[in-house]
């Protein structure tokens, strides 16, 4: 949890957005995210969650209301300039990969944002180590596996050293091991001070790493709180056809005073020797 004196990373005041076709995707969102938070954004398709986070790096500009990223009103700057502040990792890495080597691919972003060459070099080394891509500098991106390409996409955004990192469904089609590795990386980035915004359908993933959950529904924030508090609102969540992780639903059904968000928590809380012993 970050102290309330932490500077503001994202600030949305009565944020409204309508597509040119007239469809109102965001109907008045008020939100403050402080630097260093790890926020998970969930909701069905069409709830406005992707539309909301696309405002965080200026891809979309509010139709009404204000959105500020690290104090900068997004309407005053283009996306390309805002890339230094907030990095957006798209769901499909193939939407951005085009270079001949991994090295060039990662360097593309920093070059665009005007990072000096010497700094690019050190940034490159740092992100490659962080995302476990060492030794692949000269490899052609097309020859990487899907998981490696996904890590490459994250690396190429991180290389620009944005203080906010937005990830849109980063775990599609990955096995448990790959997901754990990603969680560990994101946690480390968060510890290092990055603000992380994670859009996902996977509530188990959110429970593992986010310390705040935003539930979007019909263009508004329906629930905003810690995963523990949000998952407790079973009836509200049912309205959005979302269900908390199985272990949380299990805790609720069994009637435990404290809900478990992850299996590890449940294991850790077990003290008894066998059926019938009480535990807290």
């Amino acid at each position, binding site marked *: 949890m970050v102290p309330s004196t932490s500077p503001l990373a994202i600030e949305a005041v009565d944020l409204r957005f309508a597509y040119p076709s007239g469809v109102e995707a965001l109907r008045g969102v008020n939100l403050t995210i402080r630097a260093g938070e790890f926020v998970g954004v969930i909701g069905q398709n069409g709830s406005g969650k992707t539309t909301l986070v*696309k405002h965080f*790096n200026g*891809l979309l500009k509010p139709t009404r209301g204000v959105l500020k990223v690290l104090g900068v009103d997004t309407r005053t700057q*283009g*996306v*390309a*300039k805002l*890339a*230094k502040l907030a*990095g*957006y990792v*798209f769901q*499909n890495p*193939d*939407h*951005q*990969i*085009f270079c001949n080597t991994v090295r060039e691919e990662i360097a*593309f*972003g920093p*070059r*665009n*944002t005007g990072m000096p060459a010497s700094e690019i070099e050190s940034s490159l080394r740092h992100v490659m180590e962080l995302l476990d891509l060492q030794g692949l500098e000269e490899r052609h991106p*097309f020859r990487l596996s899907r998981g490696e390409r996904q890590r490459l996409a994250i690396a*190429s*955004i991180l290389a*620009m050293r944005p203080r906010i990192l937005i990830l849109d469904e980063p775990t599609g089609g990955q096995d448990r091991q790959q997901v754990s590795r990603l969680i560990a990386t994101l946690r480390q980035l968060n510890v290092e001070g990055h603000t992380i915004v994670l859009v996902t359908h996977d509530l188990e993933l959110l429970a593992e790493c986010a310390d705040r959950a935003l539930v979007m529904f019909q263009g508004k924030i329906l629930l905003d709180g810690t995963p523990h508090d949000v998952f407790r609102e079973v009836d509200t969540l049912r309205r959005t056809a979302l269900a908390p992780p199985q272990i949380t639903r299990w805790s609720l059904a069994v009637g435990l005073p404290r809900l478990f968000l992850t299996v590890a928590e449940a294991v850790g809380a077990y003290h008894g020797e066998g059926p019938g012993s009480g535990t807290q």
Partner: protein
Amino acid sequence: MARFLYTFALEDRSWATHLHPMTMATLALSVAIIAFSTLHLGVMGATLAALLLFMAVGRLPTRSTLAPLVLILPLCFFITLIQTLARPEGIVASWSVAGREITISAVGFILGLRITLRVVLLAVVLTIFFTVVHPAKFTKALCDLRVPFKYAYSFTLALRFLPLMLEELATIKNAQQSRGYDIDQRNPFLRVFRIFPLMVPLVLIALRRASTIALALDLRAFGARPDRTFFVDVKRGPLDLGLRAVGLSAAAVVLIAAIAGWI
């Protein structure tokens, strides 16, 4: 783009959707012949009036049928501008700018407007075509004319996947912009390579998608037998023959008149 296409809902409202697809194709062809034969204002105006009449009688939704015209407005503007500035005859005003002479030609302006009208005619008949014709029926009509199914079907595939490809391009553009890629890059060095970050992912995604579509098509027995059946049916009625006759005769008359120099 999708909004300007045929929808089932239109079938209840407009008798025009029951016309044979080849009738619409013939009408489109006739209008094209007329449009390219002459720039005579009266002839073009009459043709446009006929098309609008068709839309009214056929109860076609005006807004969605005419909306695509907005897309060609820039083109029309440019055509008119170029003709106005380039024509050497009928100059009404001129002045020097930085050693060069800029002239405004009244003749050019009128010519520009005529060409614009030609473009509008073509655009209107094409949107009417796409609004009224059910793609599957068009495919069937082509197959009736002995076009092999896989070529006739490519029309449907294009209509289906072109909008998707445009969406992919938009996503790619967003993804690259999120990496600081500035579309209006002023730096002359990078300007040449401006297109790569957009084109490479697009081509790759298109290829990947194409190979998955090919697999899906084959799994649904595409090309299994030459005597494939069709769920939709197309019939030719007296109205079809009448409209085709009218269209082709009008086109023939205009063409002959143009060649003979009468208009």
